[in-house]
């Protein structure tokens, strides 16, 4: 192992030790040195493994061996890439659809949470990833969706489906209201102001007792229902079936997530998406290439908020309960973590990060108290090792392959 890697290993291990030992070792019950050492050991092990792999791959012996294997490997790789992406997507979809059939109720519930966060992550990706506007108050739109559905359902008995468009419009309007004053801001100022707006919405929900019942929250919303025709005696009747079971709710959010993936993907590859990316790259050049940047930035806020609003409405109807404390600043951070860890602007990356970041802490209950610590660590490590995210955005690479086929020939 080259000495630079040894040095890197020692520095990183010590750094993580300093970070982990006091925080994991000092839970409320007292200093648990064994657990802290265990967590640290795992990190150090992973790091050693990674660095070792890297130096082996860099060594001359490996290079020459790889040279001999290269034709074989590229043939294998070709065989994998020859299969169209659509087939992989179908397999993935099939796996996701089959998941509730093999998982227990608890796991299905975790799956639902993951998918909600996938939708949120993709929505935020429009704002952060495509248009390049840092938004730390994103969870507010999730709250808008949840409360829109809750209030309309409780007071007017409107169904989930009729509340969806209302929630989308309200979410988009809130997105514009919050987006408008921030249009001229950049970077850190934008982050602070959006964070403030996010908190304002939460505080309003918390204190407007008459409407929102304050911190007690709202209770007793109906689950989403679907109607189907039934051929009983005397002709056709519409029967409504309430999606009460976890399984049916899982399929509903899966549908929403799939539609979100398709929607964001389409936006990404459209005239609007290209204009957003242009704004992210160079706002002045975009404006001077004829892109109305002000309007498009507002649109990005509105579209992002609309997706969050749908997720919020689903969330409230799933629990039949909502309260302002679901929408704290930390939630915005988690969604932002999903976007950054997954790879800004990368749809598969965000889907993966949404599932990993929500499922892992959820399943390993032990870790739950240290969730934010782990998030922080993961972010720090990612920024050092892989700043482009788990699965970097591939629009360019993909277009490179598709030019002859889809992009140009379609």
């Amino acid at each position, binding site marked *: 192992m080259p000495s630079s890697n040894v040095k890197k290993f020692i520095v990183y291990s010590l750094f993580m030790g300093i970070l982990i030992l006091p925080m994991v070792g000092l839970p409320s019950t007292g200093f648990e040195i064994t657990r802290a050492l265990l967590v640290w050991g795992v990190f150090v092990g992973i790091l050693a493994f990674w660095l070792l792999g890297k130096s082996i791959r860099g060594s001359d012996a490996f290079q020459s061996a790889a040279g001999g294997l290269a034709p074989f490997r590229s043939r294998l790789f070709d065989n994998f890439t020859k299969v169209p992406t659509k087939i992989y997507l179908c397999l993935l979809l099939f796996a996701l659809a089959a998941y509730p059939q093999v998982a227990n109720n608890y796991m299905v519930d975790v799956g639902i949470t993951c998918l909600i966060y996938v939708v949120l992550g993709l929505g935020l990706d429009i704002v952060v990833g495509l248009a390049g506007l840092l938004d730390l108050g994103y969870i507010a739109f999730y709250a808008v969706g949840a409360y829109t559905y809750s209030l309309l359902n409780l007071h007017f008995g409107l169904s989930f489906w009729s509340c969806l468009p209302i929630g989308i419009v309200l979410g988009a309007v809130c997105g514009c209201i919050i987006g408008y004053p921030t249009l001229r801001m950049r970077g850190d100022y934008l982050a602070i102001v959006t964070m403030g707006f996010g908190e304002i919405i939460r505080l309003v929900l918390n204190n407007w007792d008459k409407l929102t019942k304050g911190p007690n929250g709202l209770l007793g919303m109906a689950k989403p229902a679907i109607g189907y025709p039934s051929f009983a005696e005397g002709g056709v009747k519409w029967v409504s079936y309430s999606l009460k079971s976890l399984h049916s709710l899982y399929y509903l959010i899966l549908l929403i997530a799939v539609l979100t993936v398709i929607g964001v993907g389409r*936006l990404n590859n459209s*005239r609007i998406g290209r204009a957003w*990316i242009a704004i992210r*790259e160079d706002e002045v050049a975009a404006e001077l290439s*004829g892109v*109305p*940047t002000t309007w498009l930035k507002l*649109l990005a806020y509105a579209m992002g908020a609309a997706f969050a609003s749908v997720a919020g409405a689903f969330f409230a109807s799933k629990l039949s309960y909502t309260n302002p404390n679901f929408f704290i600043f930390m939630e915005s951070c988690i969604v932002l973590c999903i976007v950054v860890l997954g790879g800004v602007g990368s749809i598969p990356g965000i889907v993966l990060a949404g599932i990993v970041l929500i499922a892992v802490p959820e399943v390993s209950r032990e870790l739950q108290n240290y969730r934010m610590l782990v998030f922080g660590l993961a972010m720090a490590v990612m920024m050092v090792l892989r700043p482009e995210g788990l699965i970097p955005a591939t629009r*360019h690479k993909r277009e*490179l392959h598709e030019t002859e086929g889809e992009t140009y020939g379609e």
Partner: protein
Amino acid sequence: MAELVLRNISKRFGGLLAVDNLDLDVSEGMILSLIGPNGAGKTTVFNMITGVYPPSHGTITYRGNKLNHLRSNRIIRNGIARTFQNIRLFKSMTVLENVQVGLHCRTKSGAFRALFRTPHQKQEEKEIIDRAMEILEFLGLVDYRNEYASYLPYGDQRRLEIARAVATQPHMLLLDEPAAGMNPRETAELMELIIKLRDTGLTIFLVEHDMRLVMGISEIVTVLDHGQKIAEGTPKQVQENERVIEAYLGTKSKERA
């Protein structure tokens, strides 16, 4: 009346008068060059025309419409396009995508059409690609269409900037030092390209330091020094003008020292 008319234009940056009471007419279909030593205020003139900032005084009229307080994207839509002295491409986008962004202001499909992939939207996306490919073909960049903009050689990046500007379907093209950093062969190609563009009906408003290029293709040359117009005329008239030689060579030699 001329296509673009500047009347009594001034621009003040704090204590500095970058452009001082400038009158300028650009007539349709011609190649007009604005020259002058570094810091003379040439880029500032372009910035005011394209609405990066408004002039402190004076009016800018384009085809009879006052531009002074329009947003830049509206000015571009009115038919003026520009390139930048320090290249400002969208670096992580491909060459094709850069040109597609230029077509934004001539196309319509919004977010909803994109979400639902309406037939109209699909058709328009196809047209955008076809049009962008035509423009790349015209500028000889078609082989690079899938490269990242930042991977292009310098001269091609400058041409891509022109391509993106041309994509906005302008009547008038403002080029800010397009030959900067080019070798003589690339400059010669650029010269042909500018003439070719003019022949498609574009008015060319050029800011350039390369005198062979300027004197070779311009119909009118305007000379700016310390924000003031000190001479205007055909290349020949300007080259023989005493004040120009003094101002120009004076600063030039100081610069070299």
